[in-house]
Structure formats: structure tokens, C-alpha cells
């Protein structure tokens, strides 16, 4: 349901003289902003909307109807772990005893907040097999950057400043090399084998005393567990490098395997993937970074530490001298931290063990149910996700993009498409542990229908979507015209 009037741009709903706010009276009006030197004030007010409260509410409510979220339906976006975002987490994130805390309140007035922060640090350490965590990084990419900073600081503390190379598999997400570059490291690519796992023979000659470390996900971007991980870690350690674990694909390991036990030294976790905090249209996220014993002192400042006496546990904010420095204003995205800890408490030690296995079961179930109509380039058991290389029947001319768009017509979000780059028509499917067999069956049925449509009525698939709020968009026009703000003069 959508109202054309209210879905216009908010600027188009603006009428001079309307207002959507109320403020208490100013009791000290004899102090006037006009007393500031004129050259320090803006000459013309910003063109912001003038709208009444109901218009604002209807406008954004109508816009929300043009959006699809996990709460709307199945969202099998590979590598993004679109799991259910429990409602209790949202309530806790805005808990009145936490939401008004100022980051620079006096010590002793924020003990509850510090305890949540500390407890989440330690739960993540236990779940991942690391020694200590920082929750300061604001997102996954920010965690990667922070983790690589830890890596460089470690080598520099040993006088090995020449270690500036980071090895990244060719299948890795683009963020890995981008983070390395921001961190002042040089990226060296290691090849994958036909089954998508790291080619150990290609890795061997890359290892020397200029290597700072290696970045990996496990399972990798194809959803395949890197069986030779122990060998790879031993080789990198032998050469004096550190192993970095990109936590993007941590979900299938929950309950079965810990990165720390696989030989990784530094890692980040995406709380918005594995620990159920909402993706919020792309953020805010949170990217805690964990390290193995011996690397704790390099973590970014400030840190939350426990100071216990005989009777009680206390917590304090600390700034260490060996730290790599500061990567955030304060202690990260605290609201996201509250949500993730609520999730861990809800799951408890019993249920957390089911997360990985059920996510893995769901992925394998979908894969096995569709591999007769979609091209499965890598056979065998997958973890939480897998990749199809387009429709099996290539004669129809229907591409992965077309299949993805047609899925929208049927009320499903599309998988991740054209990633990883190893396959031309990649579609990466990740159903999480929260999806029921009936949901998966419906999805499977629709994909089979689309495969049939591709043969019988390819044009309909190629022009999809047909039932969405808008049709296919002209990307080229957007890039060429670069209209990125509203034109008030038009």
C-alpha cells in the first residue's frame, strides 16, 4: 500500500509556515545569538522542510512500505548473515538507564555500562577462542583495519618494521585488500584451487620475512571450509607472520569450531551478522577485534578492565602505553553492544551450540534441492552458504541478474549476485538458522518456477521485476548525471 502524495520527497511536502516540533520557552532571551559577530553567522538559513508532524510520520511510513527487511520476508543475501533481529534486543538498546549516559561521565556513574561492555568482551573471547577483545571498532571494515593495526604494532614492537606485506586469497572480499591499503600494508594475492580453497603451493613461495600476515575467512567466500587451515597457519607462523580471521563467515562455526583453535591470532566479528544486531539499511554495525594471548596490550585505547577487590567486581576505563592508539571517539557503538549481549544471554550456552549446525543444515538443504536446475560449481557439503553459477540451462539467455530481479516479484529478497568473482553468474545463497523448512521450501519452489519461466517465457524474466514499487533502474544515467541532492530551483 503506497500513497503517491506522501512518498514524494520531503522537500516537496514543505509549506512555509508549518512546523513539526515544540520546544519550551527560552527563559533567557536577553542573551541573543545576533550578538555574535555577524561574519561568524550563516547568511541564509538552510533549506530544510517545513512540515507538520503527521505529514512527517506519513511520509516516512509510506517510504518504509517501499523497503524489504528480514521482518518482511526471506533475505538469503550471501555473506551478509541476515538473521532474525530479536525484538528484546531493540528494547534493551534503548534501555532508559543506559541510553542517556554521556561518554565522559565521572567514574562510578557508568558501572552498569562498563559491566555490559566487559561481559560481551569476555563472551566473544570464549566463543572465538581468543584471549581478549576490544569492542571499539564501529563496523566490520573498521575491525579489519584495527586488527591489521594490531598486526603492524606487534611487528614494530619486535623491531621488524620491514614486515609490510599482507597475503589475501584471490577469492576474498574487496574490503580485505582495501583495509590493508588504508593500514599502509602491501597486498599480495594468493591463488585458489578449483574447489575455491587456498592453493598451499602458491602460498609457500610468498612467505618470507617481509610478510606481516595473512587474512582469511573460514569457511571461505564460497562457503567451503578450508581443510588445510592448520597447515596454512603453521606455514605463516613459521615465516614469522600472523593469521588474521575475517569474521564475516563466523556463523556456521558457532557451536562447532573456534577461530582461536584453528591457529588465528587476530580476528574481528561482525555483531550485525553473527550476533543478530539489525543491519539498519547498512549500519550502524559493530566490529569487535579479538587477539590471542600476548597481543592484548596492542589493542586500541580506551579499554575496559576489571578491577576487583575482595568483595565486588569493579570496572574501569584504561589507556595503555603499548596500544596502537585510538580508532574511535569512545567505546564504540554501545547501543549495538547492548543488543549483542542481550542476544547472547537469550541464547545461553545451550542454544548457541545450535546456531552453526542449523544454519549449515539450511544451506545444504537449499543447495541439494536446487542443484538439478542451477549450476553447482563446487560439489560436496557447504557451510552456511554456497554459490550457484547461474541457471544450468544456459540456452535461455536468462542471467543471474534476471533471476534475482524475478525473485523480488515473488516476495523474496535476492541472493548476493556476481560475487565472488570466481564465477561469471555467481549467486550466493545464505539462509540463516532462523528460517523454517516451509520458508525454504517456498523459496526452492519459486526458484524452480523461475527456471521454468526462463525456458517458457524468458522475456518476462528478463524484464522483471514487475510487481515492485519501481522497475529496473537506469544505473548509467545516475552515474552520468550525478544528481545527488534535491534541486530546489527546479
Amino acid at each position, binding site marked *: 500500500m503506497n500513497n503517491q502524495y506522501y512518498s514524494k520527497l520531503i522537500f516537496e511536502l514543505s509549506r512555509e509556515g508549518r512546523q513539526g516540533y515544540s*520546544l519550551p520557552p527560552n527563559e533567557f532571551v536577553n542573551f541573543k545569538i545576533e550578538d555574535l559577530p555577524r561574519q561568524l553567522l550563516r547568511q541564509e538559513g538552510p533549506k530544510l522542510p517545513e512540515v507538520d508532524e503527521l505529514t512527517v510520520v506519513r511520509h516516512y511510513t509510506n517510504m518504509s512500505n517501499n523497503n524489504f527487511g528480514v521482518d518482511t520476508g526471506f533475505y538469503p543475501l550471501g555473506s551478509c548473515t541476515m538473521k532474525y533481529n530479536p525484538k528484546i534486543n531493540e528494547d534493551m538498546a534503548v534501555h532508559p538507564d543506559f541510553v542517556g549516559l554521556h561518554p565522559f561521565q565521572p567514574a562510578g556513574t557508568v558501572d552498569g555500562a562498563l559491566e555490559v561492555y566487559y561481559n560481551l568482551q569476555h563472551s566473544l573471547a570464549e566463543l572465538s577462542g581468543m584471549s581478549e577483545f576490544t569492542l571499539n571498532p564501529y563496523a566490520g571494515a573498521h575491525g579489519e583495519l584495527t586488527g591489521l593495526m594490531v598486526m603492524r604494532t606487534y611487528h614494530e614492537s619486535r623491531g621488524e618494521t620491514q614486515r609490510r606485506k599482507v597475503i589475501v586469497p584471490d577469492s576474498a572480499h574487496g574490503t580485505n585488500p582495501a583495509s590493508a591499503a588504508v593500514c599502509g600494508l602491501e597486498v599480495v594475492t594468493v591463488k585458489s584451487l578449483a574447489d575455491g580453497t587456498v592453493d598451499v603451493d602458491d602460498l609457500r613461495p610468498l612467505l618470507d620475512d617481509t610478510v606481516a600476515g595473512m587474512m582469511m575467512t573460514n569457511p571461505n567466500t564460497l562457503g567451503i571450509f578450508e581443510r588445510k587451515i592448520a597447515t596454512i597457519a603453521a606455514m605463516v607462523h613459521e615465516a614469522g607472520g600472523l593469521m588474521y580471521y575475517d569474521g564475516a563467515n563466523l556463523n556456521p562455526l558457532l557451536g562447532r569450531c573456534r577461530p582461536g583453535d584453528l591457529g588465528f591470532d587476530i580476528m574481528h566479528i561482525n555483531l550485525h551478522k553473527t550476533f543478530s544486531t539489525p543491519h539498519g539499511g547498512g549500519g550502524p554495525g559493530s566490529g569487535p577485534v579479538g587477539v590471542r594471548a600476548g597481543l592484548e596490550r596492542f589493542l586500541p585505547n580506551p579499554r575496559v578492565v576489571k578491577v576487583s577487590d575482595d568483595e565486588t567486581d569493579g570496572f574501569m576505563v584504561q589507556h595503555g602505553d603499548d596500544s596502537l592508539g585510538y580508532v574511535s571517539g569512545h567505546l564504540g557503538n554501545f547501543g549495538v553492544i547492548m543488543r549483542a549481549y542481550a542476544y547472547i544471554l537469550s541464547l545461553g550456552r545451550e542454544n548457541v551450540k545450535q546456531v552453526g549446525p*542449523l544454519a549449515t543444515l539450511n544451506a545444504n538443504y537449499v543447495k541439494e534441492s536446487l542443484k538439478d536446475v542451477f549450476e553447482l560449481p563446487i560439489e560436496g557439503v557447504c557451510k552456511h552458504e554456497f554459490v550457484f553459477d547461474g541457471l544450468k540451462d544456459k540456452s535461455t539467455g536468462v542471467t543471474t541478474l534476471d533471476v534475482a530481479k524475478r525473485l523480488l516479484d515473488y516476495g523474496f529478497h535476492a541472493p548476493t549476485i556476481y560475487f565472488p568473482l570466481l564465477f561469471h553468474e555467481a549467486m550466493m545463497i545464505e539462509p540463516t538458522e532462523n528460517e523454517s523448512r516451509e520458508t525454504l521450501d517456498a523459496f526452492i519452489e519459486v526458484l524452480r518456477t523461475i527456471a521454468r519461466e526462463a525456458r517458457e517465457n524468458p522475456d518476462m524474466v528478463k524484464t522483471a521485476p514487475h510487481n515492485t514499487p519501481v522497475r529496473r533502474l537506469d544505473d548509467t544515467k545516475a552515474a552520468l548525471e550525478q544528481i545527488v541532492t534535491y534541486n530546489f530551483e527546479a
Partner: protein
Amino acid sequence: MAYKYFPHTQDDLDAMLGRCGMKSLDDLYQDIPDELVFKREYDLPDAMSEAEVRRYFNELGRKNVQLTCFAGGGYYDHYSPSVINHILDRSEFLTSYTPYQAEISQGTLQYIFEYQTMMAQLTGMEVSNASMYDGTTAAAEAMMMAVANAKKRNRVLVSETVSPIVRRVLHTYAKFHGVELDTIQEKDGVTSFDDLKNKLAEGNVAGVIVASPNFYGIVEDYTGWADACHEAKALLIMHCNASALGVLKTPGEWGADVAVGDGQSLGIPLSYGGPGVGFLCTSKKLIRKMPGRIVGQTTDAAGQRAFVLTLQAREQHIRREKATSNICSNQSLMALYVTVYLSLMGRKGLREVNEMGYSGAHYLAKRLVESGKFTLAYPDKPFLNEFAVKTDQDLDLLATVGALNDINIGIRIADDTLLICVTEQRTPDEIDQLVEVLTNPLSTKCDCDDDNSPQE
């Protein structure tokens, strides 16, 4: 084994495993070498019911103390209208991801387009992204942007009047990214123009970072700065308080190339420092050097107006190590916060918020100076709603007395200097009470034993 987040019945498990040719969940992990499998119990609490989770946070919440906030320093206690949380709770917004499938993401794409427009209006710049984490990292991104733009020059100057919270993040990024970060001296609470000119003359400068208002709350006069920077081919980067941009001269008007800061002051709760939303606005000329996601207007196959992520070829998922930044986030939900806030407040509301902060802060400053126990740290410098005062009294003691009276008196920025902020949230009574605590601490009534705090 039924659990509220897992829909699998035993029947489901059997049927689904059967289709995969397996007998148990363990079979799904047959590819993991046994010695790598985690076998013991996790050392974690037992599962809690929803009521128990709530009780747990209620109990911890009681260990926090709710204080009337006179602290700023980059995090501001502004009022957040009720409408905002209700809109943010629309789970079509909350539970979606980056709008890759534009046809079913027009809600997110459209509000980001509106956000970009509003931030461009506030900063006086031409383009904006919605991808920065917070004000400190937005400044770091702008610093790296300046260096990328300059190609061979790698020196960036930052004023000593930029918040130390921002400067220490800049320092960290600079160290790893190979940026030579140098400071421009402060003189009487403002940045020395002479020192800027001297340091520009030394050469190799890619960018200059200043603040408005600065860390001491002072509104600096940057007349001539943009010309001086541009003559040296350096970008002028201005770190701003977003709310204050409703009244203060904009980075665009000063001739700056990049405006950065945190949008938290536009109605986002303090939430112990996060999440906020960094903003980064610049000119069209520099759009390709700008990190993060950008939404552009286009048309769909039926010719109607629609919005889409654009200029993506600059980004990390395509350019890998050559990308302008490693940022993948869209700080969307927080950008929505700001967008709804600015829709409600409009130009007039934002101005009133600033007027109330200005009036309250100047009233408070006057009272403190009149008491004879405080002096303004920079008496002849203009400020908006935040200012620094000096005193001979013990600031730790004042902070403690303040806390006992449920007041956060401000931020101690030197042994004898306190940074105080007044927003529209502070009532005349609260301001008078702060004056009482600060000027007469030992006789201030301590109501710490009264059981009147709301959470008890």
C-alpha cells in the same frame, strides 16, 4: 530442544538431513578435521527467558547514575522527538541491509537522498555521503582524502583547537597510513593564522583541519584561510558541530573543501558515545575522492523518478586495494534519525535549539563569572553553547559533589579548566542548581540518600 529462534522440529531435521544424504547434524561437519572441533561446554551463562534478560539489564542499569548533563566535548544532550523512534522502529527500515536491490529498497535510498540534501544544506557543500561511523573517523577519512587528492604531498596540518578526541584518532590513522600529521598552534583559544602560513610555506601540505566551533566552544574567524590553503594547493577541512551549522557560518561559506563532523547532535541519543553518524560533505569536483556510498537520482524502466547507489566503481568491493577507502557501511539508520529530526525541526526549530543553547550558556557563564570563583578561560572570544572556565577550586571535588547531586558538571580539560555545555534540554532550575554546586560546593544539599531517582 525447541527454542524460540529456531523453527526446526525433529521431523524437519530428519527430512532435511535426509535430502542432504545425512543422518545427523554432525555429518555436516565431516569436512572439519576432528582435532579442530570444539568439544567442551562454553563457559557462558545459561539461557535466559525474555523476562530474565530484562531483569538482568534492569539490575545493571541501577549501577549507572542518571546525571543532568552539562558535558559536551563532541557528544551533546539534545531532545529527540518521539516521532523519531517510532519511525526507526519500522522494521522495514531497521532489518534491511545496504540497498543493493534498488527495486525493493526505495525507502532506504530515498531517505539517504533526503539526508544528503539536508547535510549539503547544513554545511553549504554540494555533496554528502551517509557512510561515516562517527565524527572522529570522518575526520580521518577526510585526512586520507586530502592526501589521495594531492597525490605526492602527504603532510596534513591539524589545529590544536580541534578536539583531542578527534586528534588522537587522526594521529592513529596518520601513523599507519603514512601521513605526516603536524599541528597548527593555538593562541588565546584560537588557531594561529601566522602559524598556518608558516607551515604552509614549508610545503608538502595536502590538507588543513580546523574546527567550528572549536574544542573550547569558541567560534573561530576563518577569514582568509581558504585562500591561504588553496594557494598552497591544500584542502581546507572543517570539523563542525552539526547542530550549530543551523546558525553558524557554513564550511561552504568559509570556502572549505570538506566538511566533517558527527550528526549525533541532531537528535541522536548519547547512548554512552555510540552509535552516532559521521558526516562528510564536499564539492562535486571531489566527489570521486569521497569515501563511502552515494545515492543518486535516476529513472526506472517506466520512466518514474527513483533512487540508486551510484559511483560504486570507486568503492572497495570493486577497486580492492585501490579504493578510496575501506568503508562498506552505510550508517543508514542513524542517517534516518538525522533526516527525521531535521524534517521535524526545520530551519526554524534548529535555530531555536541553538538560540536556547546560546542564551542558557551565556546566562550560566555570566553567573559563574559574577560569583568571583570562575573566570572565562578566553574572555574576549565568542562562543555558542559551550565554553571553558577556570577556577582555583578542586575540579575533582566539584565533579563528585555534582554527581552526588545528579549533575554532570562538564568535562575537566585541564587541572584548573572546566568545559561546560548548555543545550535546550537544560531548564533554568537546573542551570541555577549547577551554579550552586560550582560556587558553593560544600554547602550544597546532598540528596544522595534520598530514594528519589526514578530507577529505584
